[in-house]
């Protein structure tokens, strides 16, 4: 499985995270998204005419959307992550995979605006980002009331992986995450999963790391 990847992209990171959690082996092809703009090059557009990352290729299959890539990696390496326990869980996974597109279009855009100086209607992006975070918060509250700790049910699924990165990285786009207690506990639970991997701005729980013994700083 080849992943066209950019280290700072939340949509690429979610694929790397799922691969790490399921033990899937990825071959990473770094795309010079910034400053090179390689995703707009003729060679890349020949693979994905939409000019977005991530893209996955596996044998004759080409996938140009993170929801599809997550579904494929899970189906190959960790079917439990598909969340097929009940019709309700399965539908919720579909819901949050679709919802994640709104995160890319709001928080994702605010972030590339602030970090990479890409043009965007920053006020509108931030407003839409806040609305997304409020919807995730409300959904997590409802799941908790029904006895579940994750977005689609009582265990982590693709729903959580799809929405986790932007929920963590919102401050990069000038969107505060201070006001969401349920999101805070949920992201902590994900950061504590066995096999969890980091990206710049998203770290494993420090409290689970051993106390550094006399490090030099």
């Amino acid at each position: 499985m080849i992943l066209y990847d950019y280290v700072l992209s939340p949509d690429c990171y979610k694929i790397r995270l799922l691969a790490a959690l399921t033990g899937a082996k990825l071959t990473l092809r770094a795309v010079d998204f910034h400053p090179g703009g390689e995703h707009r090059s003729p060679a890349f557009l020949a693979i994905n005419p939409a000019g977005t990352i991530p893209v996955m290729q596996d044998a004759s299959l080409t996938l140009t959307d993170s929801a599809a890539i997550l579904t494929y990696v899970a189906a190959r390496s960790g079917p439990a992550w598909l969340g097929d326990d009940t019709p309700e869980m399965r539908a919720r996974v579909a819901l949050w995979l679709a919802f994640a597109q709104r995160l890319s279009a709001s928080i994702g855009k605010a972030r590339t605006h602030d970090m990479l100086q890409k043009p965007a209607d920053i006020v509108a992006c931030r407003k839409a980002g806040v609305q997304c975070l409020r919807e995730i918060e409300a959904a997590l509250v409802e799941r908790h009331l029904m006895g579940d700790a994750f977005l689609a049910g009582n265990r982590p699924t693709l729903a959580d992986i799809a929405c986790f990165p932007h929920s963590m990285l919102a401050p990069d786009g000038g969107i505060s995450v201070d006001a969401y207690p349920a999101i805070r506990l949920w992201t902590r639970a994900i950061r504590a999963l066995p096999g969890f991997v980091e990206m710049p701005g998203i770290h494993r729980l420090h409290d689970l790391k051993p106390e550094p013994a006399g490090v030099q700083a």
Partner: protein
Amino acid sequence: MLPYWTPVALSRDLAPLVVMPVVVDGAELALWRSASGRIAAWADRCPHRGMRLSHGFVRGEALSCIYHGWSYAQSGQCQRIPAHPDLEPPEAIRVPVHRAMESGGVIWVALAEPAALPPALAGLVPLRSVTLDAPFDPAAAGLAESGGAWRGTLAGVAVAVLVQPLPENRCVLHVLADGAATPAALVDASRGVETLRRQAEEALA
């Protein structure tokens, strides 16, 4: 500095090892809970280089700053500087500590000696905390003051609402609901809270 207890979080939302930023009377605080369950509310500013301590992490009974790892005991006293592991940190390196207490499933903070205890919240369970980008208008929400909380019903469920004012006309509502309500009814009440927020923010717009 206001001489009363301000609600800052639901106890449930501050699990052991969690640290969160809260605002009381305009002051930014780091609220955290140790591994053994003790809560503390500190000035949200590391004495070293001023990093927000609410970005830090809890190990055991101490809070560590994310920046250079200085760690602080419950008293606020710096107990360890990783770059100088053999140094006993001077007494003067100390985070200002504020009064914090838990009562009725709610965490309360006071910057000055409070004149009275927090309100009694018998028969209620914590529902959720929501931040409004608008002031809270209890009358518009159909709630009336009783026993130190705003009380009434949301989606048919009896609730008590506690208000934590924020700067710039914002506020946090800490909502508790009838402990006898079913989970499904509590979900409806949670949606009622969303409606209440939408109305408050639209009224302002």
